[in-house]
């Protein structure tokens, strides 16, 4: 308790609020710079009995605005109707319990905070009880807590009435959390707390930030990756009503105006000369051809059990799987608001990576991160795009604000957002397998080719031996299908290109699951074994995978024929600690693949909010289906050709299958839920298309050949 309590006593006529420390967690976190961080406040209780949960992570649709609050409320025993949430400011105390930095990603919020947030609730309840006991001159154990009210015999006090006295007590450090059997809230379906503002237009996203004096900027960025600005002329832009300034950024030119429309017209009126990329610029088709060539020889060794070449010499099944570059395309285009005041910098942006953005902004301004305040509004989708180690959209906005000398909101158009980089990297997988008499793999040689996400960022230090980026190969060497297989070799080529890449919902699993689950399906068909039975045999020592797969298959009616003109395909994949099996039922109508129904079985360990989990599975399926059916960026001369949803189509209402979600009761350690259901959908659909058409589609997006 070295920090002053004064800082988080929020005194006002309307409310007296208290906050609670979690001292051990605070001590465990690195101090990123002076002065001392704001108090470790995760919870405030108002005199009006309101319970405000402070979220160390960003709400971007995944439902932590509800889920984290449930964790505190479970232990606090408050009135759920009084619970509200808010995003925490950027501060070291809000660092991710497992990663140190303040960030949201890796499907790790709920499992990462499961202890800390429950403990906050327990500590707070204990303080409220002791305050009540002291007031009534009784023992704490005579007090009963329910729905935000403490009672002892005929005495009764609400949390709000006790909050001020409770705040003065020393938090306990020896509390025991409830046993799962005693949970009242965890494990029950709970509706979202952010619904009221999101159905009325009141929810504030980054793009909605507005205050007196704020200007809007639209930026002209290089027309190709690797192009550099030679010169520009802002005269025509400055003639547009509302345009106030034209300023250079590190890589482009920003038009600063009274409002977006003027800034956009001004940006479009800029005349700029660019030096094209020296090598003519990246070309996605040429890159894929090069990757395909590279896949013929082994890369850096991820795993090599030995004996692979000998085992493969007797004859192999070989297949090459390919996936393209993909944009995240969140519905809210990127944006960032910056206000500079002396050496202080205030930022409003929908970010998944507050600490990284603080560091990046401080670097631009030549200051320290304690001078960088970050406000996190709601994120209009993240999917990884808003967790950039390069903090591109923040760095640029700080540059614009600095150059313009006024507070600015930099808004990206949809074209800017699609063409501005940071994509799911394209990959080629060449898989060669030898099988035994029963068709089961006895040797597996897997060459992966694609850009590393970590290379060139400050995360490079976390790469494995030989420069292996674990996210390029996750789900291959550790595949349950290959468990115990000695003759297993996985190698990786990580070519560098000018195309900026980034994690994209479920990261490497987006392509590794496609390659693994399609290859398994090919081997099953080659062995003339039912694809479900084939997998179940290989999963004998992996009961969680087997159970998930069997459940999805059973619920999808695998044993019964599909309706006429349809076929089913399946896939199961583990990622972020959760196992998801999916069965897709497809038809082909007018040459187009149509997915009618998806049946998912999910083993994510302890389930905090089943209603939210169902939403995330549906969400992952929709997101992954967009990639399976449509998503592809075409890059020529270093320039992305697609510009908007007409040429970068995504799943719309008529494309959306029904998604039945079966949550498996599980006492396994809690896994993530925001991403894991993304990866299995593409292989499940591809395998269903094969079952229906006998066309084995090995490249995403899935495109049927002409019959």
């Amino acid at each position, binding site marked *: 308790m070295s920090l002053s309590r004064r800082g988080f006593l929020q005194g006002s006529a309307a409310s007296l609020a208290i906050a609670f420390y979690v001292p051990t967690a605070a001590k465990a976190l690195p101090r990123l710079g002076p002065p001392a961080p704001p108090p470790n406040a995760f919870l405030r209780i108002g005199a009006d009995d309101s319970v405000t949960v402070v979220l160390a992570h960003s709400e971007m649709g995944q439902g932590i605005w509800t889920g984290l609050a449930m964790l505190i409320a479970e232990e606090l025993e408050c009135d759920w109707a009084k619970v509200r949430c808010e995003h925490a400011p950027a501060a070291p105390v809000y660092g991710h319990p497992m990663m140190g930095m303040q960030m949201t990603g890796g499907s790790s919020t709920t499992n990462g905070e499961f202890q800390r947030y429950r403990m906050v609730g327990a500590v707070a309840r204990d303080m409220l009880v002791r305050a009540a006991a002291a007031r009534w001159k009784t023992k704490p154990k005579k007090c009963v807590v329910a729905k935000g009210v403490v009672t002892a015999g005929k005495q009764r006090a609400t949390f709000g009435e006790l909050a001020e006295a409770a705040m003065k007590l020393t938090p306990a450090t020896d509390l025991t959390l409830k046993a799962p059997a005693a949970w009242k809230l965890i494990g029950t379906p709970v509706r979202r707390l952010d*619904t009221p503002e999101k159905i009325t237009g009141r929810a504030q996203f980054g793009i909605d930030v507005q205050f007196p004096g704020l200007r809007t900027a639209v930026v002209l960025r290089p027309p190709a990756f690797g192009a550099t600005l030679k010169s520009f002329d802002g005269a025509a832009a400055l003639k547009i009503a509302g345009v106030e300034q034209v300023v250079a950024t590190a890589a482009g030119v920003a038009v600063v105006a009274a409002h977006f429309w003027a800034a956009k017209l001004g940006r479009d009126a800029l005349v700029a000369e660019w030096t094209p990329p020296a090598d003519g610029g990246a070309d996605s088709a040429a890159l894929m051809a090069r990757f395909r060539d590279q896949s013929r020889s082994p890369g850096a060794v991820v795993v090599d059990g030995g004996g692979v070449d000998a085992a493969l010499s007797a004859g192999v099944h070989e297949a090459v799987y390919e996936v393209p570059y993909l944009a995240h395309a969140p519905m809210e285009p990127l944006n960032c608001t910056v206000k500079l005041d002396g050496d202080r910098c205030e930022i409003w942006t929908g970010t998944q990576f507050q600490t990284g953005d603080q560091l990046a902004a401080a670097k631009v301004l030549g200051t320290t991160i304690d001078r960088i305040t970050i406000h996190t509004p709601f994120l209009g989708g993240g999917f990884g795009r808003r967790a950039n180690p390069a903090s591109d959209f923040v760095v640029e906005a700080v540059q614009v604000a600095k150059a313009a000398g006024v507070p600015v909101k930099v808004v990206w158009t949809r074209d800017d957002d699609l063409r501005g980089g940071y994509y799911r990297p394209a990959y080629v997988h060449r898989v060669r397998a030898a099988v035994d008499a029963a068709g089961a793999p006895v040797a597996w040689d897997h060459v992966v080719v694609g850009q590393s996400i970590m290379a060139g960022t400050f995360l490079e230090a976390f790469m494995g031996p030989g420069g292996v980026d674990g996210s390029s190969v996750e789900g291959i060497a550790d595949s349950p299908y290959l468990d115990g297989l000695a003759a297993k070799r996985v190698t990786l080529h990580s070519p560098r290109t000018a195309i900026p890449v980034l994690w994209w919902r479920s990261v490497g699993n987006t392509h590794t699951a496609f390659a693994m689950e399609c290859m398994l399906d090919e081997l099953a068909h080659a062995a003339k074994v039912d694809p479900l039975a084939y997998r179940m045999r290989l999963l004998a020592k992996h009961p969680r995978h087997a159970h998930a797969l069997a459940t999805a298959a059973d619920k999808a009616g695998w044993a019964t024929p599909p309706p006429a003109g349809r076929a089913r395909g399946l896939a199961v994949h583990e990622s972020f600690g959760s196992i998801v099996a999916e069965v897709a039922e497809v038809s082909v109508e007018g040459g187009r693949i149509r997915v009618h129904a998806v049946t998912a079985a999910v083993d994510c360990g302890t389930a905090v909010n089943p209603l939210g989990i169902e939403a995330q599975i549906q969400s992952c399926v929709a997101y992954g289906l967009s990639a399976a059916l449509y998503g592809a960026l075409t890059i020529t001369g270093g320039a992305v050709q697609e510009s908007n949803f007409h040429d970068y189509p995504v799943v719309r209402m008529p494309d959306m299958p029904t998604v039945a979600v079966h949550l498996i009761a599980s006492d396994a350690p809690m896994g993530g839920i925001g991403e894991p259901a993304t990866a299995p959908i593409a292989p499940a659909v591809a395998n269903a298309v094969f079952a229906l058409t006998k066309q084995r589609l090995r490249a995403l997006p899935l495109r049927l050949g002409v019959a």
Partner: protein
Amino acid sequence: MKLDVNGAVREVEADPDMPLLWVLRDLLGLPGTKFGCGAAQCGACTVHLDGRPVRACVTPVATVGDRKVTTIEGLSPDGGHVVQRAWAEADVVQCGYCQSGQIMTAVALLEKKPDPSDADIDAAMAGNICRCGTYPRVREAIHLAARLKRGGA
């Protein structure tokens, strides 16, 4: 020029070509209507003109004339419109960014077809993209709103 927005006549000074979306967001302080594509591709900017859904991002403000503009902020004073109630009941929203547009399109659909079929919903909602994939619950909420409107539960 004068604009009738959510039941109030507002005076705005704007270039006639300025899209209604930016007039609402940047000049009239109504940010509930969202910018998603700027090209009538995604539906996030859907508002009503005399009750009919339009894409505000491609509607020049000068073409609005005396038609009544309704935005998400004007749908109900407190989120109590039957479609909003259905949305809450079905726990539709995720990131929430497209939801103003989804709701405005759904309201217009139900005005035209009080008991829409799945095919009607597909046709009416096809222009509204949701990257979070809330589609199954949007569908459920529209059916629910239709029941609520008829007075059922």
